[in-house]
């Protein structure tokens, strides 16, 4: 792998940047691997990277039906935070946060992780009570957090309408200074480059059509392009399409796939240097380095695999943003898109063994998977390497929906899912 550095940039400038190495190979798959990861998004690539780097399993293939990082990794609003209420979720997301903090150095790839802080606004007395409870829980779990009053919020975000004339006045907020944003594509590319350098085969444009199961044990996958590819263990990290793969394996998951939309404005001068989220008026916004406002809100309520949603959902999102930031009312929106999110009844992920032996699923991240990318990949890699679930992943078994031990972050986390 070619090492990236300032010196390298200077060196290549003399040859007009025409001699950069390809970032990853485009190999033909072998007949047999130790581990196959289905799905080449952020979580799948992170899983492959940590499998090779931390756990020494390099005979790994990532099989992706489109191109790397082309699904929800390319479609999210790039927010990273770890201020979850319940211990199980807080530990998992904080594990990810700690990996984020050294990720660019670890990958030798600039993921542009910017810890610009995240505000979760409170608009009612109950919101403020919930915020106090959540911040207290966060601090007990070693996660940074503060409860701010209206004046303190106004100092951080002067353009936010903090007046008492607002329809939903801002009474305060929770503030996580270590939260922020990262460059979503770079995360996928950095993990892909790192995995490839450790010998992982990244197989693109190859759709898995079936899982090969013999005597209740998965032994490989069947693809249209390369036929059968065998493996000792298979990990499925396919977000919105998880239920489709589970059906191939003969079981159901407690998931429903919904469209989640987001949009960006035209680029404007720097105006918002943090992330602002509101559960109550239900929208969130940040500003990218390029200057666009990156805006999102809730899912479309119906099931959908179409990577698009209804216009009315976008309209509600914009209403919320303009309610919070009247100054944005004349900003024009540039692009709008949708992704398919696999939502779980308790708004927590499934990182789990399945009824099929040697088949593992990492799914159900719903609307909030991006922030967990490195942590999710790390604990899933550990689980695949050892054949038993990592301690941080254990509470997120799919069988919690049989025994009732849900991790109910619905409404408890910073923003509604």
């Amino acid at each position: 792998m070619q090492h990236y550095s300032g010196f390298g940039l200077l060196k290549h400038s003399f040859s007009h940047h025409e001699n950069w190495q390809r970032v990853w190979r485009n190999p033909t798959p072998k007949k047999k691997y130790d581990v196959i990861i289905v799905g080449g998004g952020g979580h799948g690539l992170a899983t492959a990277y940590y499998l090779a780097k931390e756990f020494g399993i390099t005979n790994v293939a990532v099989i992706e039906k489109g191109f790397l990082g082309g699904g929800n990794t390319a479609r999210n609003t790039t927010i990273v935070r770890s201020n979850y209420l319940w211990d199980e979720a807080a530990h998992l997301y904080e594990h990810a946060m700690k990996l984020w903090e050294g990720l660019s150095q670890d990958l030798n790839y600039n993921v542009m992780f910017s810890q610009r802080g995240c505000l979760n606004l409170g608009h009612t007395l109950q919101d403020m009570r919930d915020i106090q409870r959540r911040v207290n829980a966060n601090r007990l779990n070693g996660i940074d957090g503060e409860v701010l009053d209206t004046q303190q919020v106004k100092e951080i975000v002067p353009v936010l309408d903090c007046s008492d004339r607002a329809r939903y006045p801002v009474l305060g907020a929770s503030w996580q200074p270590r939260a922020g944003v990262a460059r979503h594509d770079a995360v996928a590319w950095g993990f892909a480059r790192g995995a490839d350098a450790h010998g992982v085969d990244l197989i693109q444009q190859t759709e898995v059509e079936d899982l090969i199961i013999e005597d209740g044990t998965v032994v490989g996958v069947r693809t249209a392009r390369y036929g059968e590819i065998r493996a000792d263990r298979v990990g499925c990290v396919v977000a919105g399409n998880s239920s489709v793969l589970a059906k191939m394996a003969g079981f159901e998951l407690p998931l429903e796939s919904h469209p989640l939309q987001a949009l960006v404005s035209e680029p404007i001068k720097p105006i918002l240097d943090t992330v602002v989220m509101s559960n109550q008026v239900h929208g969130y916004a940040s500003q990218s380095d390029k200057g666009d406002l990156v805006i999102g809100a809730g899912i479309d309520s119906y099931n959908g695999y179409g990577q698009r949603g209804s216009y009315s959902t976008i309209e509600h999102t914009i209403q919320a943003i303009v309610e919070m930031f009247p100054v944005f009312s004349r900003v024009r929106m540039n692009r709008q898109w949708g992704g398919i999110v696999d939502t779980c009844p308790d708004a927590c992920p499934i990182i789990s063994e399945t009824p099929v032996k040697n088949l593992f699923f990492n799914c159900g991240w719903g609307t909030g998977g991006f922030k967990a990318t490195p942590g999710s990949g790390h604990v899933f890699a550990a689980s695949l390497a050892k054949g038993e679930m990592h301690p941080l992943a254990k509470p997120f078994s799919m069988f919690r929906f049989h025994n009732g031990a849900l991790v109910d972050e619905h409404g408890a986390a910073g923003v509604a899912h």
Partner: protein
Amino acid sequence: MFHIYCPHCCEYREEEEFHVAGQAHIARPLDPDACTDKEWGEFMYFRANPRGIHHELWVHGAGCRKYFNVTRDTQTYEIKEVYKVGEKPSVVADDVK
């Protein structure tokens, strides 16, 4: 934006008047106390979630406030048919025919 035919109001109305209420035709166990944890968990939480033909329950929340069933393709979003609660769908996915 969907235009949905409400079989109770007998007219097409815009999506915003409706709300989806999840998968249709899920029978509540007749004797919940006799269910195992697995059976009850599957009734509560596990869903078909197909990519393709899906039968779902909708409610005309800002209209007559009555429930009805919709058969819809979750890939193309095309509404195949609308039918009342208690009726059977005439359009079903190939693998369940």
